[in-house]
């Protein structure tokens, strides 16, 4: 929406404002912008921002979007709008011959963000003003103070006003000794109230302030924020742990059926996840080509398709290979491992060895702030999705006739057969169900991992760990194990590092399995002896 507004504004300027404005101090700024030197362009940006030229905003916006062009011969500047180039000074359409893009790097992007922030402080739209205030806050530029004061006097929105006050405080503190001691002390309070890592950065920068009182206030502020952040770090670790646990749960839950319930050591489980991810890729490609408007629906569409694809492959594998190997775990292990290699190479031959791009729908990108805890939407949806899959699978096993038959067959095959259940078909469909669930997991994992032929390999060991740790044959055990491992991993990681943390966890599981060979929730009863 905002992008549309900006485009509209740019278009409006292109049509009306440009011809009228062949004048003033902005000419000097334009001359500097039409350059290949970053230093010149930076000077041009600063000059343009303070020139009062009404075109300044749109021109800077065009610059950061790589839509500003210049002609080295006569230093003409032009804005690209769609396919057409419009000369900035005359407003006439020009041919693109001889024009080169004005280049930007990070240093210029920072300068433009700051200047655009200052320019947009008086924008009519609340959200624009808020992001403008944030940009000025980040820039910490004392030159923005007059603009901030004007904007503050006019501002009516409480939230935006607070952002602006913070920006003003940050700008005041930018130069040590730049303002009076009382002003700086008040600014320290404002910054401390903000309480995030940006605030921490500013307060830490005050360690060399000339005034003792400001140094003390800043130090108090730093320790206050640090105490709060140490507390938040634990909450954050818990959240990261739950999020990692949900990924482990998704990866392992299909295996909890094929390995846990059926007892098949299925090394090709990871490849079912991979097939699900590639199904997502195909769905997205199709949508991109045929109906780009449906892109946000690509994941809901991919879920059933991934289930069917992976499930069908699973049934095929069961019917052709695994059913001949029941009761022979070693041969099953080798055969399924072979199948996993075959599937990987097949995908590599069809799709190529490189990663495939799976995009994130709008509701899965970005993050939001919850009491200072930054939660990314993608991770949140994966947690929700993992729990939903878990509940659905549990219901299937507990509340449907198919689930009843599955449990009957796995608990006492002969008795089940005697009751008229076609056990071979139940075997095939149960394996298909486990594989299909793995495929569904692939849809979610495509959002956070590489979609490459090796996708599954990264999850197979973790999946087995989770299922064994949780207790073979128990879905609840899988849930608890996945979350436990996830949270434990994330609490270890900050102290031990990612590599050592993982090793420590493995050692713990080995010790645990020594003590309780059947995992957290051991099955009791006849099935165990079978």
């Amino acid at each position, binding site marked *: 929406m905002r992008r549309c507004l900006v485009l509209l504004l740019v278009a409006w300027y292109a049509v009306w404002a440009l011809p009228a404005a062949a004048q003033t101090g902005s000419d000097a700024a334009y001359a500097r912008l039409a350059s290949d030197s*970053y230093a010149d362009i930076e000077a041009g940006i600063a000059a343009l921002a303070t020139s009062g030229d009404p075109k300044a905003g749109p021109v800077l916006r065009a610059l950061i979007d*790589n839509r500003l062009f210049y002609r080295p011969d006569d230093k003409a500047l032009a804005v690209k709008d769609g396919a057409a180039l419009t000369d900035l000074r005359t407003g006439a359409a020009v041919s693109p011959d001889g024009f080169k893009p004005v*280049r930007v*790097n*990070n*240093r210029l*992007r*920072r300068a433009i*963000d700051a200047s655009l922030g200052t320019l947009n402080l008086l924008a009519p739209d609340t959200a624009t003003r808020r992001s403008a205030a944030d940009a000025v806050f*980040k820039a910490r530029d004392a030159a923005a103070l007059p603009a901030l004061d004007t904007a503050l006097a006019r501002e009516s929105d409480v939230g935006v006003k607070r952002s602006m006050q913070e920006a003003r405080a940050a700008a005041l503190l930018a130069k040590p000794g730049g303002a009076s001691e009382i002003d700086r002390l008040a600014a320290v309070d404002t910054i401390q109230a903000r309480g995030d*890592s*940006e605030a*921490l*950065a*500013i*307060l*830490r*920068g005050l360690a060399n302030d000339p005034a003792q009182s400001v140094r003390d206030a800043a130090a108090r502020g730093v320790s206050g924020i640090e105490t709060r*952040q140490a507390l938040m770090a634990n909450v*954050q*670790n818990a959240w*990261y742990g739950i*999020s*990692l646990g949900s*990924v482990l749960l998704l990866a392992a839950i299909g295996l909890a059926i094929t390995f846990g319930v059926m007892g098949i050591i299925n090394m090709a489980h990871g490849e079912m996840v991979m097939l699900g991810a590639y199904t997502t890729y195909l769905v997205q490609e199709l949508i991109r080509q045929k109906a780009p408007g449906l892109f946000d629906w690509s994941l809901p569409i991919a879920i059933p398709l991934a289930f069917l694809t992976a499930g069908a492959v699973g049934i095929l594998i069961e019917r052709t290979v695994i059913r001949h190997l029941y009761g022979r775990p070693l041969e099953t292990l080798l055969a399924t491992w072979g199948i996993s290699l075959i599937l*990987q*190479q097949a995908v*590599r031959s069809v799709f*190529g*060895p*490189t*990663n*495939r*791009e799976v*995009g*994130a729908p709008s509701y899965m*990108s*970005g*993050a939001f702030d919850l009491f200072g805890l*930054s939660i*990314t*939407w*993608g*991770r949140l949806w994966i947690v929700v999705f993992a729990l939903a899959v878990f509940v659905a699978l549990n219901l299937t096993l507990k509340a449907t006739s198919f689930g009843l038959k599955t449990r009957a067959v796995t608990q006492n095959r002969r008795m089940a057969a005697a009751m008229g259940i076609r056990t071979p078909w139940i075997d095939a469909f149960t394996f298909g169900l486990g594989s299909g669930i793995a495929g569904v997991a692939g849809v979610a994992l495509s959002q*956070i*991992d*590489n*979609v*490459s*032929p*090796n996708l599954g*390999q*990264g999850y197979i060991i973790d999946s087995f760990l989770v299922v064994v740790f949780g207790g073979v044959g128990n879905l609840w055990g899988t849930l608890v194990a996945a979350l436990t491992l996830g949270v434990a991993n*994330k609490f270890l*990681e*900050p102290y031990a*590092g*990612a*590599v050592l943390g*993982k090793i420590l966890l493995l050692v713990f599981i080995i010790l645990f399995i020594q003590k309780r060979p059947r995992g957290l929730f051991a099955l009791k009863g006849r099935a165990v002896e079978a």
Partner: protein
Amino acid sequence: MTWKGWLSRAAVAGGLALGTLTTTVASAQETIKVGILHSLSGTMAISETTLKDVMLMLIDEQNKKGGVLGKKLEAVVVDPASNWPLFAEKARELIAKDKVAAVFGCWTSVSRKSVLPVFKELNNILFYPVQYEGEESERNVFYTGAAPNQQAIPAVDYLMSEDGGSTKRWVLEGTDYVYPRTTNKILEAYLKSKGVKDEDIMINYTPFGFSDWQTEVSKIKAFGSAGKKTAVVSTVNGDANVPFYKELGNQGIKATDIPVMAFSVGEEELAGIDTKPLVGNLAAWNYFESIKTPENEAFIKKWQEFKKNPKAVTNDPMEASYIGFNMWVKAVEKAGTTAPDKVIDALPGIEQANLTGGTAKMLPNHHITKPVFIGEIEANGQFDVVWKTKDLIPGEAWSKQLEGSKDLEADWVKLKCGNYNTKTGKCGGA
């Protein structure tokens, strides 16, 4: 004539007939065999398959020009399947059984280390086309990728400069294996020599294929909030990069706040990611596809035609393969033979125009001269070159930053030694 003799002759004739059927080359003509040792399956296939294709394209092109020494080149492709011991086995097969004149291959340092003894024992030539951690110079190996002083050091210099944001605080983030560990050791020593304090350097390692970057990225975020300009120098390798960049984007870390300078992320890797949140992040290479020179444009066009894919991208190791292959051709023509000893002696001093407008020269230490470019990721998955070195940088086999290696010198022309200790005056002083 005995039955046996007659039979074997018939078999040879049959084989020749088959040969004429499968290749267009006249069967009587002898060929020069060239080995290609890149993984076509397993984890490294993602990167190495492209290099195999580039080699096939270069050999095909050379044959169209009439081959080398009047003979056609014949590529022998083997698949070491990302399995390090298998690299040594396949190398032995190429040299001993197929009698190749030279081998182009390897990507990871561990695969190079595992084939080294084979090349020494059977005395053949390996062209290694990937940037690596240095600390090595072997008579049988020619390194056409960048040494640390041709990639890592200039990249850090750029980040310290005003254009790069005057970085004061450093995160060295790497995958846990030999290349990142050595590179980070060199960088740490270099940063300290520039007056960076211990508390301003954070070094993190993650396992291969790491995918849960939440904690690591939030650590970087926290480290970056100390009131000093912070940058990440990433030696994260392979697949782990995609989730790393995705997490950076998700947690809202923009290149204008904390830029990431990567040494292993090229055009090929970016093809698998939505690059919009990454705009402005950096990579240091000796080649970028976006560099406009007539040679480069011709190369890209040929490559896209060869791959029959108008979107096929080119990257730095491909250029290194291109340089290595052409240097080998020139050396063979200069020596007048493909005998490895003669070619090894002929190679130092050989010059080959690189694709970005300069000239690469093979040095006595078996490394080459290279320009260094810093590129910023653009929204279209290409790199915009924002900085480059004025001159070509000669590759240093032994880092000047590390204790134990700064006194070493490699010179296969005068000293005939890969690790000559200038202090003790002896060869083999590592």
